[in-house]
């Protein structure tokens, strides 16, 4: 291995190892029952929760993918900047209510919410299975992000596959011991590194190459006059696509199973409200990633295909010393690994509670914690196998993930705000939405420029309302927020 690769990869190894050791030592004094392990004992205050939520939401895919879009597509990237704030605004109304119900009824997973509100363990089982199936490829996606980072940090000198496998075994073991509280502590370090990396990439690089970010944008506009404005109307990735995608993604923002766990971990309702207020500030960082992608477009033009995601890393690799590359790659690696711990935990928790639990397996506290821990490792291995066997189908799966997760939104919102909703209404809306997502993703049908998931969501909501009004309003067993 050559010298620069050793410096860069050494920094990555020390930072990741140090972060995991720090987080493990911080959670040592807690005894792990399922409440503590899966939802942090419902005790997180505003700052801790802020860090955890930011830690889960902003993954390596956010950073690499966003820079890649700025490099490869230009203006459509705006949607990534815009959906977060709307997601938080919606979360301000939904998360405190979800928390109140979860606290009163002892809910541990997102699927628990459906089982409890609609008084149907079968719906819980179904939701649990869908969540599980959607989570595994999302974990796998973090693996391929990590692979990109390590390959560049190794200057092409190492076999990244082995390193990725090693890193993944490490975080599976970490999650086995540390639980959600460990994810939150590790997120503190992750956020600090990511902040540093993003400021460097979005401010220092433009300053050095162009004099200022504004001068860089002048150059982008000179070379590509339409790069920073949306195509009009129903054009592909045009204005209609933008607006529908922002709305869709914002509605799905807190619908991921790992988001339910994060919401449950809050200390109080107001903690969640304050979080919704503070989290948009984190979103400003994404602007800087956008700048980094634009800088790469001018400094290292000519990349295409999946390589655009590596654009700004290649600039760092080519023009900066190995230790800078090491720090950036370390930030990126944490952004892949720490959210992955939350995803592993959510997938393992949902399988234990809603799949095994529905069949009466592992229902005592002690066996439930043990089963969740073992499943964390199993899910990590599943994701690893999926990554090795089907590396190329991933991006397609991610689109299905996000569109699929969003289909749970109507049933959640109705459970919180509409007393007339019935189990049949929620279930048929959900089924219609999920089936449409699969059909539309496979067929790639153009729909007046609208995002396909948006169409499925509309059909889902209409079905929910129509079927609910046609089915008798059986008093739900668990009436109202207790």
């Amino acid at each position, binding site marked *: 291995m050559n010298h620069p690769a050793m410096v860069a990869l050494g920094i990555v190894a020390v930072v990741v190892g140090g972060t995991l050791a720090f987080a493990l030592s911080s959670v040592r004094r807690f005894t792990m029952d399922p409440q503590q392990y899966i939802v942090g004992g419902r005790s997180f205050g505003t700052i801790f929760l802020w860090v955890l939520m930011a830690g889960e939401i902003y993954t390596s895919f956010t950073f690499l993918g966003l820079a890649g879009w700025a490099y490869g597509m230009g203006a459509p990237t705006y949607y990534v900047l815009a959906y977060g*704030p709307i997601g938080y605004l919606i979360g301000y109304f939904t998360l405190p209510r979800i928390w109140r119900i979860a606290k009163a009824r002892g809910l541990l997973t997102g699927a628990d919410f459906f089982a409890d509100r609609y008084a149907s363990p079968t719906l819980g089982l179904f939701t649990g299975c869908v969540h599980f199936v959607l989570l595994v490829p999302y974990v796998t996606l973090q693996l391929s992000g990590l692979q990109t980072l390590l390959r560049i940090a190794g200057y092409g000198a190492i076999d990244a596959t082995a390193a990725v496998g090693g890193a993944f075994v490490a975080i599976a073991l970490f999650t086995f011991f540390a639980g959600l509280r460990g994810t939150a502590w590790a997120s503190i370090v992750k956020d600090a590194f990511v902040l540093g990396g993003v400021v460097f990439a979005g401010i220092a690089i433009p300053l050095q190459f162009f004099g200022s970010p504004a001068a860089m944008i002048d150059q982008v506009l000179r070379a590509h006059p339409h790069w920073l404005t949306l195509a009009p109307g129903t054009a592909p990735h045009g204005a209609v696509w933008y607006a529908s995608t922002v709305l869709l993604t*914002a509605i799905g923002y807190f619908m991921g199973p790992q988001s339910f766990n994060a919401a449950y971990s809050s200390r109080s309702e107001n903690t969640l409200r304050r979080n919704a207020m503070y989290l948009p500030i984190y979103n400003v960082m994404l602007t800087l990633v956008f700048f980094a992608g634009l800088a790469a477009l001018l400094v290292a033009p000519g990349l295409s295909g999946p390589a655009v995601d590596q654009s700004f890393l290649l600039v760092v690799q080519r023009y900066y010393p190995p230790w800078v590359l090491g720090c950036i790659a370390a930030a990126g690696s944490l952004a892949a690994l720490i959210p992955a711990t939350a995803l592993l935990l959510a997938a393992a928790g949902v399988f234990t509670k809603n799949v095994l639990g529905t069949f009466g397996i592992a229902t005592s506290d002690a066996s439930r914690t043990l089963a969740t821990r073992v499943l964390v490792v199993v899910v990590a291995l599943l994701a690893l196998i999926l990554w090795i066997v089907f590396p190329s189908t991933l991006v397609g799966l991610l689109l299905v993930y996000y569109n699929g997760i969003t289909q749970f939104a109507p049933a959640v919102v109705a459970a919180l705000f509409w007393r007339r909703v019935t189990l049949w209404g929620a279930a048929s809306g959900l089924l219609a939405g999920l089936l449409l997502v699969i059909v539309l993703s496979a067929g790639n049908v153009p729909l007046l420029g609208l995002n396909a998931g948006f169409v499925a969501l509309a059909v889902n909501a209409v079905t929910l309302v129509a079927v609910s009004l046609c089915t008798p309003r059986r008093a739900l067993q668990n009436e109202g927020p207790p």
Partner: protein
Amino acid sequence: MLSLRALLTIIPIAALTVAVPLVNRVEPRILGLPFVFFWILAWTLLVPAFIWGIGRTERHW
């Protein structure tokens, strides 16, 4: 007549979705950013203020 709380919710959502095609221009550039870019960034920073306002109308703080 919409309540203040409803207005505080709807305005930022509209500003970041349906209003964006209306401001989809490069000029006037503000802080060096194309106007549409600045618009989205500005609303990102305004959302906390709107959420604060909603919390006030609901007497949470």
